[in-house]
């Protein structure tokens, strides 16, 4: 095994191929008789009104922002976690301070009411 990423690359290709093959077989076997009623949007039984790309709650956006902060920072924690046993004890406290700064961000967002679904 020269590079594991060659294997992962082949895996991605096969992983794409299997579902595409399933859809292709289904497209080949299934009937194709489209009409306007059949293709209309199914919502709740009455005709659809307006566009579906509607305005959405801003709260979703705020949660995504809070997530982004955490997700980017946790990537930095992985190298620390892997090599923790080889590092001096001081590094543990450095990591803990880093996590505390992260949590301070969470507490700030919490106190500002960003985590309320209102």
């Amino acid at each position: 095994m020269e590079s594991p990423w060659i294997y992962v690359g082949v895996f991605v290709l096969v992983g794409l191929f299997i579902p595409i093959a399933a859809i292709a077989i289904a497209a080949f076997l299934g009937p194709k008789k489209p009409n306007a009623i059949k293709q209309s949007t199914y919502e709740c039984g009455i005709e659809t009104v307006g566009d579906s790309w509607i305005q959405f709650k801003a709260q979703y956006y705020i949660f995504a922002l809070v997530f982004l902060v955490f997700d980017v920072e946790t990537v930095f924690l992985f190298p620390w976690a892997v090599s923790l046993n080889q590092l001096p004890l001081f590094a543990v406290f450095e990591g803990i301070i880093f996590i505390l700064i992260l949590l301070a961000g969470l507490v700030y967002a919490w106190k500002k009411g960003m985590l309320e679904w209102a």
Partner: protein
Amino acid sequence: MEFWNDPITTMFNSLLESFTSGSMSVATATVLIYALGILLFVTFAMVLDIFLVWIERKVVARFQDRLGPNRIGPFGIFQPFADIVKLLIKEDITPIGADVVLFNLAPIFSMMSVLLLWAILPFAPNMVGVDLNVAMLYLVAAGSIGTLSVIMAGWASNNKYATMGAFRTVAQMVSYEIPMVAAILVITVLAGSMGTVGIVEAQEEWWQVFFLSAPLTFLIFLISAIAELGRSPFDLNEAESEIVAGFHTEYTGMKFGLFYAGELLHSFTFGGFIALLFFGGHRFFGLENLGPIVGALIFIGKALFFYWVIMWVKYTVPRIRIDHMLAFNWKFLTPLSFILLMVTALVGRLLLDSAWLVPALFLSNVFIGWMTVLYLKSHERKTREAEEAKSVPVAQH
């Protein structure tokens, strides 16, 4: 005997020999054998998936006091094959106004994100697709493709309910990724490795399994895994009684089938990850020494057990509200998981290579759990008293 000790390498070497005996170069032959092996592996996953459909339907029937499929074959075991034939010959409907490219790509990505996880599942020490040294990051990354596929499906369907399901997914799957990553970090700290094989190797004896070192982390991982899977009680993105079927409302035939099969296989895969991260992977009290095939069977057995646990939760707990779901994650799971990470890092580093490591970690988990319960109780009492003080007292006569 060599074959039974290391079947994958033996097959790989003999195939490589016969391939390169012609004019083929080693690199081409390697990639070709990889492709053949992965095709076989993924086919195994899909066949397993077919039986997971049967298990799912049978188990949900038992939970709801029904018989489940019992007409086709013994115990209805051929029911999923009939389902597949039905899905294959159904008409594929694309709604008017849908974004055709994204609409078709979404089920493909959904299935692919699950299949990608199989590349790092270690069935036995030498029966693993690839032993990546960053396997845990790969797990999170492949999971994000699944989230992306749900968003694509919801956005491209030109359906308000589907879009709503996609929005909920953004909030849910993305939020629960944080405690999951923190739980994986705890395991990384304990194992000193991010590779799946390294993590399994770190749990050599039965008392070394990370379930004993990190029981609370196990619970956090289980909860966030269920949320990542979008299964009940976290199935807000589908929520069939509120928003029709959520993000896959407009999908028919095989494309819907891919979403469904992907969800089941995803649950099984996460059962496998729970077995690997917390219960020693292929190990079962020395039984794994019989050979890698036995180890792989033990691993599949463990994965099926946790698949059943996920199903058990699914069919027992009702769906939670979106504000509760987000508050539970951000105000409870995230702080708790990071506190656990800090405590585990500190205790694990202080008692490195000490015989007291596992008991100390276990006791610190018990302590944190106890403090959490005490805090929740006092918090609950305070909220209740504040509400009682606010409400107008009944007039006294």
